[in-house]
């Protein structure tokens, strides 16, 4: 009897049920899309923030005081260590290898060109690596310098006689694309062709950037590099990470394990030091620190926007369900008049609305997945991964909201006197 009544109620006022179904579908769609995007936005934005460049710098131990103020140091004759090129693929074998997105080695040297000295930097542009894990990756400068305007084009892996020339230098020396330039290095003389002119807004504007092998030959330092820039996906620092960054030895064993197995910039740097001989890896604070703060803000923002949207959706569904139940006062009055108990009426009502709401919710969930993909694809050009947690949350939300929508009407129903309603008061 109960099921027959529910069925009849569902079939009879079809357009009204349809409206509840549509509204809960809309609510579920908003919830699914927003929750899906919210849970994913951290990873996505983190990935996009890589556009600011590398966040870890690896240098030889002992060459500590070299870095940017290079000229000064050469005069001072401070010890100039080096890293082994052969060690570089090991960076992709650390515990967090998967989070290492890209890296590029640098070897700085000077050469004479047409009688004037120029800075020459050797690097990988898009270097193919075969890893011990039988993976193949391409790493290099092309992705680490997304803000460079390269007129002409980047140099492909294996083109050894090409060079990129900084825009300032090209202007000064009157160099154009395709020109041949002869470089007289410390140990060798070589001729390279200008494959691209770089407008970078930084030091590179006055440098010649060549494949690593060329710089090694010019400087007579085969198999050596000066520094490596690494771009890694990291988790924003917390107190533990800051404590570890000061001194990893100060951690307790369990703290150390947590730290080592979390993708903090400091633990990734530590792991790079472990695999590379005589290397010091340090976070580039300008990028690493700022990433964390931007990420935190974006996530908080998305959380708030999600809560706002969910609240709006929830209120909209509740509202409609209430409207629907209130308008059925006469029908319910009739039910009570023919002897239905309050409990029976409430059961009938809740069952009916739940069936309608959850059906709508299921449809909305599928639509919401679609919206989440739409957002992911058009904003981040990457899919938003569907999560079981989102499905669970949406189901819970729709159920709660639909029931909450019934509540005011249930209260009203309990006060309802059959005779009064049926008489029209």
């Amino acid at each position, binding site marked *: 009897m109960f099921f027959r009544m529910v069925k009849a109620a569902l079939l009879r006022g079809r357009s009204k049920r349809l409206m509840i179904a549509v509204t809960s579908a*809309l609510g579920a769609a908003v919830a699914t899309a*927003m929750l899906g995007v919210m849970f994913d936005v951290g990873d996505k934005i983190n990935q996009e923030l890589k*556009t600011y460049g590398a966040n870890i710098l690896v240098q030889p131990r002992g060459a500590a005081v070299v870095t940017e103020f290079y000229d000064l140091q050469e005069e001072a004759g401070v010890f100039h260590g080096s890293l082994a090129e052969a060690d570089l693929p090991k960076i992709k074998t650390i515990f967090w290898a998967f989070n290492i997105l890209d890296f590029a080695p640098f070897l700085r040297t000077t050469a004479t060109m047409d009688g004037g000295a120029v800075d020459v930097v050797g690097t990988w542009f898009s270097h193919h690596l075969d890893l011990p894990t039988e993976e193949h990756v391409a790493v290099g400068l092309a992705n680490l310098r997304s803000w460079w305007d390269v007129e002409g084009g980047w140099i492909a892996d294996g083109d050894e006689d090409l060079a990129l020339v900084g825009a300032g230098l090209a202007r000064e020396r009157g160099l154009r694309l395709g020109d041949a330039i002869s470089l007289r290095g410390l140990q060798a003389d070589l001729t390279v062709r200008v494959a691209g002119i770089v407008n970078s807004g930084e030091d590179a504007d006055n440098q010649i950037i060549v494949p690593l092998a060329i710089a090694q030959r010019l400087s007579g330092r085969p198999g050596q590099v000066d520094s490596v820039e690494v771009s890694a996906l990291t988790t924003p620092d917390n107190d533990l990470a800051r404590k570890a960054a000061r001194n990893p030895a100060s951690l307790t064993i369990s703290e150390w394990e947590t730290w080592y197995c979390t993708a903090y910039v400091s633990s990734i740097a530590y792991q790079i030091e472990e695999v590379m001989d005589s290397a010091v890896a340090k976070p580039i604070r*300008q990028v690493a620190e700022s990433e964390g703060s931007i990420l935190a803000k974006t996530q908080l923002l998305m959380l708030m926007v999600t809560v*706002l949207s969910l609240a*709006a959706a929830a*209120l909209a569904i509740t509202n409609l369900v209430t409207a629907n139940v209130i308008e059925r006062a006469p029908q319910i009055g009739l039910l009570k*008049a023919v002897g239905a108990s309050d409990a029976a009426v409430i059961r009938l009502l809740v069952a009916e609305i739940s069936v309608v709401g959850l059906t709508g919710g299921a449809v909305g969930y599928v639509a919401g997945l679609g919206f989440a993909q739409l957002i992911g694809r058009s*904003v981040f050009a990457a899919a938003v991964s569907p999560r079981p947690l989102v499905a669970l949350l949406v189901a819970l939300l729709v159920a709660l909201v639909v029931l909450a929508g019934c509540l005011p009407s249930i209260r009203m129903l309990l006060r309802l006197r059959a005779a009064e309603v049926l008489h029209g008061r």
Partner: protein
Amino acid sequence: MGADKVDGKASGRAGGSFNNKSIETAATGAQRRPRPAARTLKSQAMAWRMLRASLTRRRARVVIALLAVAIGATALSALAAIAIDIPRQMAREMRAYGANLLILPEPGRQTVPASTTAQIDGLVGDGDLLGRAPYRYQTVRINSQPYLAAGTDLAAVRQVSPYWQVEGEWPSRDGQLLVGADIAAWIGLAPGDGVELEMGDSKQRFTASGVLSTGGGEDSLIVMGLEDLGQLAGESGQYDLIEYSVAVSGGDVEALADRVNATVSGVSAAGVKRLTESDAYVLGLLKSLLGLIAVIVLALTMIGVSTTMMAVVAERRAEIALRKALGASNRSVEREFLGEALALGALGGALGAALGHLCAELISRNVFHRHIGVTWWLPLVAVVASTAVAWAASLIPVRRAAEVDPAIVLREE
């Protein structure tokens, strides 16, 4: 019991949607046919009376419809305010990455005169200027080894380069300085240690109040106040470069740099391409993310609002039929119901616009610790949009109800 049921059902259904009083008002409205001259005035007064009566009498239903519209308008104005203003706020947050505009000496000159800062500040504008840190570099010696020392405004540096990490303390008085982490490791300095700087013939003892680490060039730098460096190297009133942190991104920075180059003599301004390009990219991303979310959520909410409005109106079929049976024309019925919808839409829209602003302000406060910017036309859009949606959503059920022969509708009941 059986008779009671049939009877009760009929009167209950008819009366459920409106009570006797509304029959009276509708009836009096239809009976008195005013003369043409007074007609408009009277029917207008009548319409108002009916509208007021309809709104005040069925309170529950009005509250529900009003809530629906207000929720929609709240979502609209809050999301739109966020989508419009947050990327602007985020541009400020992006300055966690440091200065995005550099002032260098004009080619051929060695230094930037300190006197140019006021002029450049003016070009940047108060609202967008987040920080300005001038730098002066000198080579100094510690234990006869040369190091690079930078004199700067330390308070300004903390704003311009928030990513600087200092172990120990930031210098708080004269005679204190920061030592780069690499130098500190090299010569074995800990925070609080004394250090003697030499420059030419002058020597001075300082306290290294903190060790600075950034992972960049600053790690091999000694950073001190401009006055301290002035005492050591002599005042010059000149800077080697000035870093500006400006709350604009992308091409706007280049435009600003061009303006500075055109108006201020002796300097050469340039955007930090790495930051300006990356900022523009990330902000563009955020803008399209928020925009798309706003559009999708709004479309869905507005459909939700219209289903509720439709439900509320559709349920009054019997009332519409009864009015028609008593002689009301389709047009007058439509006018009354749509008028009601318009009033609800406008009221709900205004309510929602206010609530939406509150929500946006709350979010902005929590995330950015700043007020949300006020977009003057947004409340207007919220009111107009929700009125339009309420009106459009009522149109279909009212038309449909009005077209049906009242006898059929009333017999159904």
